[in-house]
């Protein structure tokens, strides 16, 4: 397979894997969690490096995912106190975690090129060259496998718990009255979202993940009044922009992530203007 096809496949699968949790994040007013995670993984990476002393160790990514989940838990804890609004909780957690990361580096590792960009944030251009080799046989890009596994898990969870996710997103009171614990569902969804986020950071970079989580869902939300259609449409938008963005990047010879995001942006702009014209 040529790298070109690899990239499009990875972008497509990532778009789908991000769009699904993205829909629920948008509906639950937690859209900014992926952006928060992109900052708050720094201390995880730093601690991972302190333990392994190796910038290329996969442990750094595991620690990053772990600090992603800590972010989610802290945000939830702060929200539960009822002292501040949802997004304020996010805004309180990530600068603090990020600052801890910065101070840890400045104190102990000032002479190492240690930062999120170098360790975690991949790029679609690189993705096809990091391949899964088993017994000398080439099984395609590693990123494609990771993100495909996540997509499959997400899909299985979505199909299994679709009705529970729907009811706990729409009506927390009824959900808990009927015995579908909103807390369990919330943590389940947020864990999927943060693991997807971190894995996708590794494959396609931070900003594209944030864009792929929010934009397709937001655009679909403006077009449809049916959750199922919203899920389908946002996967479609994500996948379409992934492929369209790739060719746009090829035409311009520019950053693939940047151009997929730009295509997503144009798509949203068109749908937004149509929405305004309709009113």
């Amino acid at each position, binding site marked *: 397979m040529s790298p070109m096809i690899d990239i499009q496949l990875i972008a497509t699968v990532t778009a789908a894997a991000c769009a699904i949790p993205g829909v629920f994040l948008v*509906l639950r007013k937690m859209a900014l969690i992926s952006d928060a995670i992109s900052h708050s993984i720094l201390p995880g990476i730093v601690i991972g490096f302190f333990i392994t002393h190796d910038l290329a160790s996969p442990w750094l990514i595991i620690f990053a995912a772990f600090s992603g989940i800590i972010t989610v838990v802290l945000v939830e804890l702060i929200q539960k106190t009822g002292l501040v609004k949802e997004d304020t909780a996010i805004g309180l957690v990530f600068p603090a975690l990020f600052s801890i990361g910065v101070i840890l580096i400045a104190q102990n590792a000032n002479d190492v090129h240690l930062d999120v960009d170098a360790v975690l944030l991949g790029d679609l251009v690189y993705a096809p060259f990091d391949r899964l080799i088993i017994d000398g046989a080439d099984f395609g890009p590693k990123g494609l496998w990771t993100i495909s596994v996540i997509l499959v898990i997400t899909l299985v969870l979505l199909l299994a718990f679709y009705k529970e996710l729907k009811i706990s997103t729409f009506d927390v*009171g009824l959900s808990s009255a009927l*015995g*579908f614990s909103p807390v369990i569902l919330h943590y389940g969804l947020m864990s999927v979202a943060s693991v997807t986020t971190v894995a996708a950071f590794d494959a396609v970079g931070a900003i594209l993940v944030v864009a792929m989580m929010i934009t397709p869902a937001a655009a679909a939300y403006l077009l449809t009044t049916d959750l199922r259609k919203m899920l389908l449409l946002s996967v479609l938008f994500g996948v379409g922009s992934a492929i369209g963005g790739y060719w746009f990047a090829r035409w311009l010879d520019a950053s693939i992530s940047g151009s997929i995001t730009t295509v997503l942006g144009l798509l949203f702009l068109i749908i937004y203007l149509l929405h305004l014209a309709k009113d």
Partner: protein
Amino acid sequence: MGTKIAVAVDDLTVAYNYKPVLWDIDLSIPEGVLMAIVGPNGAGKSTLIKSILGIIDPIAGSVAIYGKPYTKQRDKVAYVPQKGSVDWDFPTTALDVVMMGTYGSLGWIKRPGAKEKKLSLEALEKVGMLAFKNRQISQLSGGQQQRIFLARALVQNAAIYFMDEPFQGVDATTEIAIINILKELRKAGKTVIVVHHDLQTVPEYFDWVTFLNVKHIATGPVKDIFNDDNLTKTYGINYKVAVQQ
């Protein structure tokens, strides 16, 4: 009126933040009544329902539904929350919201099928909303939204119905439609418990009433206890203003 006790609340105390909202509530509701819970703003009416349903954790006391804890009796209970408690922009249709009422009996993972859909359509018809089944919920009027919630509760086919201010912000037609359905439910032997604001309509709509103001003041048949004495205890000396509102 049955002799069985549908809901028994024992020593229930709830506090939000630093203020106790419910103090030491002892209350038994017999089966088969259509009951209003009345009291001034902040009297803890919604809180009482929510803590009976386990949505809020009490700091003391216990609740029994037909003699057992609520978690064992979920299928016997239906709940109509306040209209404002959900985001009506949620991308879903009227029929879909009503179908949510069937989720409890389905349990985890299992999806609603044809049978559930049929039940939901029937419930929609009962509340006069069949024509709106595919309408997105944000495009419904306040009264229509309230009817959808009622239909959702009907689908649950429960023994006890809890409703949190179902008449708030609805038009007169809807109010009459709702109360007729509630009366039908009572005729069918169900217990219906309604948080209610409008004191004037209490004698007309309900046969049983609970006065609540942080503390439980009185519970009984409307004809026996809906009097100036209890109203004064609940609303203070200015209760007449409250009645006229």
